[in-house]
């Protein structure tokens, strides 16, 4: 065995606290090590060349790289030694940067630890076995969870490449939040004008299937081979028979607050959420429909000219296979009713940004008039309060929601456009307008649209008569301010969906302390998750405006397409392996394996001279978790790359 050890300075990242040369010298003394050196940047081209050259010159057969975390460069060095003719699984990394030089002070102890980490890696590599990649087929279909602008864009991109995509949307229509907006910053395009064509494109694409009013029930499998159960909630309207003629919802006697209009308007029990809905097929809300609550009415069924109404429709579960999954579930608005000082959400004339969007929409419930919900009169003095729930550890989330500054500016502008007499007062802490043409937009609002920007948070709002008294401060002038307002608009932050955690757990993707899904790397892999084959886009990962949502949507589709275009998927051979001679056939491992990756097989036992049942691992399914190994009392099942011998060897040299 000829092991080569290569220690990296990483500039000063390692060398500043670890005596790298000393590590290299110490490593040279370890059993089996025939070559040891140090270099400034091991991962650079010259660094890799040093490895390759040493392998040739010293006939090395195993390699240890002492540098950064294997999560960064394990692949790099596997490739590097492979190029030099060694099996790529005969290389180990000692993490002397993240786990050593960066977290400990300069000194002997740190160098000593680095040496030990190398000793452990040398021990492990001495027990490595050469392994070969395995290959599995790929299901050439992409699942997109969430049909907001992000999900729609992903579907369009995938369909453009002629691969099939399936959108699963919980609501009766796709479109997401954007569907409810009037205009969008910074260009003030009408939201419907830019969203509707996209919705139509997906709905007409032969490659895209849309399941609205549906949810994900279960996800199993792994990259290239996900099996997904989709629950289609009963729409009570046959989507194939309905023509969207609209007779039914015109006749329905029920009126309940419309979710789409944020409760500002009303809708029947059978309804389409908004006129451009896709699909343009109504849904019966069984909680308010008289047929379901009181077993009477049935008008819609009587009037439907196409017999599309079906009260007996039931939940339907469909199971499909996918090669990749794109998560685009978006966000919800922060619920500001936790603020007692702002009236616990009880004041009628305190509304949120989404309310305002509906109000200002000329096809919305107020016909584009900005009114006081309490009495329907036009609002003149309108106060906007930014950072509601955002940047507030006490009552909300610590992060900045990133786009409420911008939509508030948009609202202030639209307010003036709709009512030239109105005055906007914007309470802000900072204005975060870092985007193309964003700062210019805010400037325009302040300059041309006369919005008064006041720098300070509001301490209290209370009702007095039909006015709202808003008590704030302007810290720039050092003054307190009290405004008698008709309407207060809360720029509530963007937070994770209520079911984000359960979805993440179903998909086995991580989420952060704010329940936002976590990307694989914040800079280098912003749309990937650490679970291969699952990608993120839109506001479910972090607050994003429409341009960012669309950009990440295309990025995620490219990542998914990158899988689709491959014929088969190379899989790491770091999976479980059974030694049939040792296996007693007890099936304990089958019980333990969360992925059902183990099955039984009959073998001819040469010693017993009879057939015997043992188990075997299904290569494409095993994820390499190693859970089975601890279940086996015979040590008959072991995990490649992290085998019992490898780990015991590591422990032995401690």
């Amino acid at each position: 065995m000829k092991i080569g050890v290569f220690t990296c300075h990483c500039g000063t990242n390692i060398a500043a606290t670890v005596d790298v040369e000393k590590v290299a010298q110490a490593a040279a003394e370890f059993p089996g090590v025939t070559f040891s050196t140090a270099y400034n940047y091991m991962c650079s081209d010259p660094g890799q060349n040093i490895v390759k050259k040493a392998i040739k010159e010293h006939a090395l057969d195993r390699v240890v790289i002492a540098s950064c975390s294997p999560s960064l460069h394990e692949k790099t060095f596997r490739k590097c030694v492979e190029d030099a003719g060694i099996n790529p699984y005969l290389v180990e990394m000692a993490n002397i940067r993240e786990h050593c030089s960066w977290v400990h002070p300069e000194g002997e102890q740190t160098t000593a630890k680095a040496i030990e980490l190398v000793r452990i890696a040398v021990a492990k590599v001495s027990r490595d076995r050469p392994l070969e990649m395995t290959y599995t087929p790929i299901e050439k279909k992409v699942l997109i969870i969430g049909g907001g602008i992000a999900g729609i864009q992903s579907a369009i991109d995938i369909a453009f490449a002629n691969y099939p995509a399936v959108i699963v949307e919980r609501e009766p229509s796709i479109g997401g939040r954007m569907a409810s907006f009037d205009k969008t910053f910074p260009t003030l395009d009408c939201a419907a004008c830019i969203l509707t064509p996209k919705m139509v494109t997906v709905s007409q694409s032969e490659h895209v299937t849309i399941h609205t009013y549906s949810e994900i029930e279960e996800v199993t499998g792994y990259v290239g081979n996900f099996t997904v159960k989709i629950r289609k909630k009963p729409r009570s309207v046959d989507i194939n028979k309905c023509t969207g003629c609209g007779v039914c919802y015109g006749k329905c006697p029920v009126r309940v607050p419309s979710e789409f209009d944020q409760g500002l308007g009303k809708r029947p029990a059978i309804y389409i959420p908004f006129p451009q809905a896709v699909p343009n097929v109504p849904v019966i809300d069984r909680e308010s429909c008289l047929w379901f609550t009181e077993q009477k009415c049935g008008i819609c069924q009587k009037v439907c000219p196409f017999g599309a109404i079906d009260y007996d429709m039931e939940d339907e579960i469909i199971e499909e296979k996918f090669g990749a999954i794109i998560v685009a579930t978006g966000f919800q608005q922060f619920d500001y009713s936790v603020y007692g000082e702002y009236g616990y959400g009880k004041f009628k004339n305190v509304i949120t940004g989404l309310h305002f969007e509906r109000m200002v929409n000329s096809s919305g419930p107020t016909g584009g008039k900005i009114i006081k919900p309490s009495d329907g009169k036009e609002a003149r003095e309108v106060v906007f309060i930014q950072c509601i729930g955002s940047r507030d550890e006490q009552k909300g989330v610590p992060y900045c929601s990133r786009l409420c500054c911008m939509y508030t500016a948009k609202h202030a502008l639209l307010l003036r456009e709709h009512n030239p007499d109105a005055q906007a007062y914007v309470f802000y802490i900072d204005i975060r307008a870092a985007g193309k043409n964003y700062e210019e937009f805010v400037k325009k609002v302040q300059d041309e649209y006369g919005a008064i920007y006041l720098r300070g948070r509001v301490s209290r709002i209370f009702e007095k008569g039909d006015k709202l008294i808003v008590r704030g401060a302007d810290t720039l002038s050092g003054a307190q301010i009290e405004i008698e307002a008709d309407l207060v608009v809360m720029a509530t932050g963007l937070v994770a969906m209520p079911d984000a955690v359960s979805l993440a757990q179903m998909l086995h993707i991580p989420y952060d302390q704010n329940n936002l899904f976590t990307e694989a790397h914040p800079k280098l892999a912003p749309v990937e998750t650490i679970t291969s084959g699952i990608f993120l886009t839109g506001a479910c990962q972090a607050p994003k405006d429409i341009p960012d949502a669309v950009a990440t949507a295309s990025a995620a589709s490219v990542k998914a397409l990158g899988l689709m275009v491959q014929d088969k998927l190379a899989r790491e051979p770091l999976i479980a392996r059974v030694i049939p001679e040792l296996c007693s056939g007890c099936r304990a491992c089958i019980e333990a394996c969360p992925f059902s990756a183990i099955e039984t097989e009959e073998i001819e036992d040469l010693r017993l001279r009879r057939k015997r049942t043992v188990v075997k691992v299904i290569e494409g399914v095993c994820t390499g978790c190693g859970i089975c190994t601890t279940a086996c009392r015979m040590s008959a099942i072991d995990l490649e790359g992290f085998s019992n011998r490898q780990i015991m060897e590591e422990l032995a040299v401690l």
Partner: protein
Amino acid sequence: MKWFISQETIRSPFKRILERDCGEKVSLCYQCGKCSAGCPIAFQMDYLPNQVMRMIQLGMEEHVLSSRTIWLCASCLTCSARCPREIDVAEIMDYLRRRAYRKGIIPLEETEIPLFNKIFLRNIELFGRLYEMGLIGMFNLLSGEFFKDISLAPKMFLKGKIGIFPKRPKHMKELRKIFKNSEKLGRVKRSRLLQPRLIFLNVFRKFIGKVERLK
């Protein structure tokens, strides 16, 4: 008023000491102004509470300790209850007052409050419970507003709301010991009650005020 903030000020240990001693992270204040927006006393203050926080961040000890704001703060806790960064502003105001006390910095205009505090504590030390008559009398005498609220006294007396004589609990010795020990352990020097400077300033100011008004 304009100031010049020097590098030494910024590097002074004031903020560090404050954060250590009163356990509040002033560095977290991002100047949102919510404290000032809700402060009921702000209309009388020279600096708003958020400005006080800022001055602490910048190490401006003298400015802060000689401000009127810290004496005017009524400890109503509105600010602390609403600060998004969970800074207990009222606690910091308390701390600043105690520190100003110790350093003997009291702004000319705000001598009554420290004087009142002193008389109040002295009052308890002597009588165990508040002896209102003594408190008001003493305060008026020493603050130079001899006849303040005098019209209320007979009314209050008739309604049985204030007694002429103090009522003392039994264990006055124990109580004095508590005062002594607290001083010792808390390492506060409780300067003499009749701190001549304070009284002089007060009476003098009131007197000037009267003369001004006469003109």
